[in-house]
């Protein structure tokens, strides 16, 4: 329903999105601040947008009131001051944190603009989508054969009740309703995109002991933003997770982020499983395939020469099949970090292969630019 406030509300949202863009770098480093609301919305905390005024400082005294049986004594803590500088969140005095709701699409747009990322083009035939019509809609005109009787009756009933000045006098069991032309409703069709020709993302992660909590957090953030960006381009995206140490397993999301083993690492196991999955389920001619591998760069260096195996898998099978294959090396104090050099030295000038290195949370921003820029 259009309201007078819509103009000002729209302007406010515009300013807010600008703010999100400014804060994006900070946000990318701290992915956990973003809350998901249902399937489509994200909730982003940004510092309150406000007009500055001359006010008393944050050390000023406030008056509070005990609630219920609660009667605090001198020295009792009331609440923490998380920002440590300019006031806390929630009920406490000081700066509010404003929570903004954005759709995934809006977030992706801001992301793309801020990082100056080019639009992703689907490969070849894969941008063909088929449309189908399904009769799930309603409209006010149509052939008599398509009348939606229930809706029509409801409209007529509504009209009768509203136009009666004494609504109290109507007996719900006995209202005279006549369906006239403006009340009639008819079935109509809606257009649906076929899921064929969509995209699939494979996230692969080294879960050996050298990947600690901090590293996994970084991977989590990277996965979130990759997901946001790709979803923006392809409707109906599928996401699959492969974790590996010396052996690779496909798992669900929860397991992917929470499993830790202590053992050796054989990266080829993951690449091999990846290739098998592609072969079986996702025909490269029909699917846009994206693969991302996260590891600390420590690969099996014993006999068997796992590095060679990896390179062979990449060159011969994986890279030709994917739109993008990204390798992200997360810095870990325990890993040697040698694998990235292997890749860089041996795979050159391949537009599909993207290599990035992430030292800490703040480097996530640059790594995303490398992957998609």
């Amino acid at each position, binding site marked *: 329903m259009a309201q007078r406030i819509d103009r000002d509300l729209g302007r406010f949202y515009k300013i807010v999105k600008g703010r999100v863009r400014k804060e994006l770098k900070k946000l990318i480093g701290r992915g956990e601040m973003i809350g998901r609301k249902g399937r489509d919305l994200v909730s982003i905390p940004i510092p309150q947008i406000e007009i500055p005024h001359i006010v008393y400082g944050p050390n000023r005294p*406030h008056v*509070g009131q005990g609630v219920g049986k609660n009667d605090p004594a*001198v020295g009792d803590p009331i609440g923490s001051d998380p920002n440590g500088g300019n006031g806390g969140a929630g009920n406490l005095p000081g700066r509010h944190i404003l929570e903004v709701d954005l759709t995934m699409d809006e977030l992706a747009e801001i992301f793309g603009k801020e990082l100056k990322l080019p639009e992703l083009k689907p490969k070849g035939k894969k941008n063909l989508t088929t449309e189908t019509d399904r009769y799930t809609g309603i409209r006010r005109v149509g052939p008599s054969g398509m009348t939606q009787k229930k809706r029509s009756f409801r409209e007529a009933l509504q009209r009768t009740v509203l136009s009666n000045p004494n609504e109290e006098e109507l007996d719900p069991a006995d209202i005279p309703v006549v369906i006239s032309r403006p009340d009639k409703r008819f079935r109509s069709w809606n257009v649906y995109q076929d899921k064929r020709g969509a995209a699939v993302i494979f996230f692969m992660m080294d879960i050996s002991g050298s990947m600690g909590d901090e590293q996994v957090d970084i991977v989590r953030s990277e996965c979130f933003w990759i997901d946001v960006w790709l979803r923006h381009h392809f409707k109906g995206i599928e996401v699959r997770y492969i974790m590996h140490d010396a052996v690779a397993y496909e798992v669900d999301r929860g397991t992917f982020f929470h499993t830790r083993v202590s053992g050796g690492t054989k990266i080829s196991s993951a690449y091999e499983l990846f290739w098998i999955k592609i072969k079986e389920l996702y025909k490269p001619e029909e699917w846009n395939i994206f693969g991302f591998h996260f590891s600390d760069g420590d690969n099996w260096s014993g006999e068997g020469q796992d590095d060679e195996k990896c390179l062979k898998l990449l060159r011969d099978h994986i890279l030709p099949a994917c739109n993008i294959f990204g390798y992200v090396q997360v810095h870990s104090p325990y890993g040697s970090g040698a694998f990235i050099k292997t890749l860089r030295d041996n795979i050159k000038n391949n537009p599909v292969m993207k290599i990035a290195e992430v030292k800490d949370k703040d480097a996530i921003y640059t790594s995303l630019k490398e992957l998609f820029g």
Partner: protein
Amino acid sequence: MYGGKLPRRLKEAKYAIEQLMVDYFELWPFIKCPDGSRSEVIFEIVNWEQMSEIAAFGGFPTRYPHWRFGMEYNELSKGYAYGLQKIYEMVINNNPPFAYLLEANKMVDQKIVMPHVYAHCDFFFNNRFFKKSDRNALNMFANHAKKIDRIIENQGEEKVERWIDICLSLETLIDFNADAIVVHEKSVEKSAEETKEKSWDGRLPTKEYMDNFINPPEELEAQKKKIEETAEKEKEKERGLLFPPTPERDVMLFLAENSPLEPWQKEIFLIVREEAYYFVPQAQTKILNEGWATFWHSRAIAEIGVDEEIIDAADHTAGTMATTLYRINPYKLGRELLEDVVVRWDSHRRGKIYEECDDRTILEHWEAFVAFKNIYEDFGDSPEKLRKKWNEFLCFWKAVKEGRCDFPNAIYDLDRLLRHWHYYNTIEECLIEFEKSISDRFRLISDLNKKLQKVKNDGYTKGIEHYELAISLVKNYIKRLRRRKRVFMSLRKIQNEFNRGALSPEPFPLPDSFFLHAKKYPGKLEIGRGLKKIFEIRNIYQDTTAIDEFLTKELCKELRLFVFGRNPEKKLYEVTSKEFQAIKEALLLGLVNCGCPDIRVVNGNYNNRGELLLKHRFYGVEIFMVKTKLVMENIYKIYHNTINIETVIDNKPKRFSFDGKDFKEENI
């Protein structure tokens, strides 16, 4: 204007409630129109989106375009959607007043909300701080919106938005204590006589315990020095060298008149200033206004009765009066303050006789003491008469306590004992008044019946409904009067029973201390003045003066108030004090000057280079320099010259300056 008209049930409820508030409670929520009639309160039903919109716009649907309204709306509608807060009603201070009711309110909610609305109107139209308030503000805001729209057409949206942002940051730099806004055409120069300061030691008049707050010793020292300098300044003034002649509290006015602004900038600047001034009385009386409305809606509900809906009613009231640990709820504080005044003025728990009393027996039986005191004043010279009257009091007390002689036991309350004792002693007068009231009403009914008959003969159906409704309302009123009258009748019966010797006294031994204390403070005690007193408060007080005068130590304890502040080392907020003085000071800090620091223009030609010098009057609490610097940047964009501000940070007087590029800090 906005939403739907009241449906029939609510319209009937409206008339009943109006009659209750006006006739029975004696509120006066009306303005006299020029033709002698009185303004109606116009109710409209709106849904929650419309309600949030009205609230976001501050009550006036046509405002200039700005994102702050969008932001406010976003917060309000989110609050509603997540069940965090609900605005049940909005009352617009206008002639006629508009009241918006939330469509989703149940009937019981509306029954609570409508008396609340009437009480708000009563407050708006009787409190002196609203006397000069523009009752046609709808027009003012609409005109402002039109003007700004025109300017946007000429100057562009973004330019205007950025300028409005700048102006808005100065919204708090006005004279909150001005009686009314000073129109900008008036000259800033005042005659030398007007501004001559009489000989004065620098102290501002205040109560003893407020002294340190209003007259901190360091400030007094500074003041003394200033008095010496003032003599110098007087000479400079006469030579026309001081500009402005006295520190100007209305910083916005000073800037408007002395800054190089383009006409469109000045126009917008003055609009923002005018609107800021419009809302000042409302900000200054928030606690009293909400307290007043809550006080009366509780009384109204008690009269109307809610039957099965009692749970919802309690829920509603609890919701509006809910406290979170960190925020004072104005509804609760205001209402508790007023209720406390009623009790204290009814039972004379005030003045030296109460404050200087430290005898526990007397304090625990204060009502008995007051009754005794007045009897003592009347019959002090004749111990026999005194004993007789005292005995009568004890018999009366026992009788009402036990509900003898049809005294409705339900209304027995120690708080009201003295009031009933007062009625008991003036029974005949009271009864005569009642008879008159009731016979007046019967006459009114017969008049109405005659009119009804005529209208029936004419076949005018709407008129029939109207008169039937009016008659039923008067009949209800008579019922209420009769209920009250029954109380008086029972008091008279008690009197008769006492005279017959048929009553026994309440077993309360008369302590000697009563005699001693009564003797110490001569003069009869006025009792039963509670309601009268709060009407007085409604008329002449604002939040600061009301808290200053009526907040007591006991009330603070009862409300469990405390002072809390930030502990920078531990990075948390903690309780710092529960002392009455500290609580009061902290409360007043947030109320005086509408909670804003005292900033004045001291010199418009500082350093003889046309710089602006502002001074923060430091009373113990520092200003927030981070935000102040942002405001200084904004003022620079207006004054186009260096902005200086003197304040105290870390117990050291400092001067901060901004020259358009950098900030400088100096110790003074």
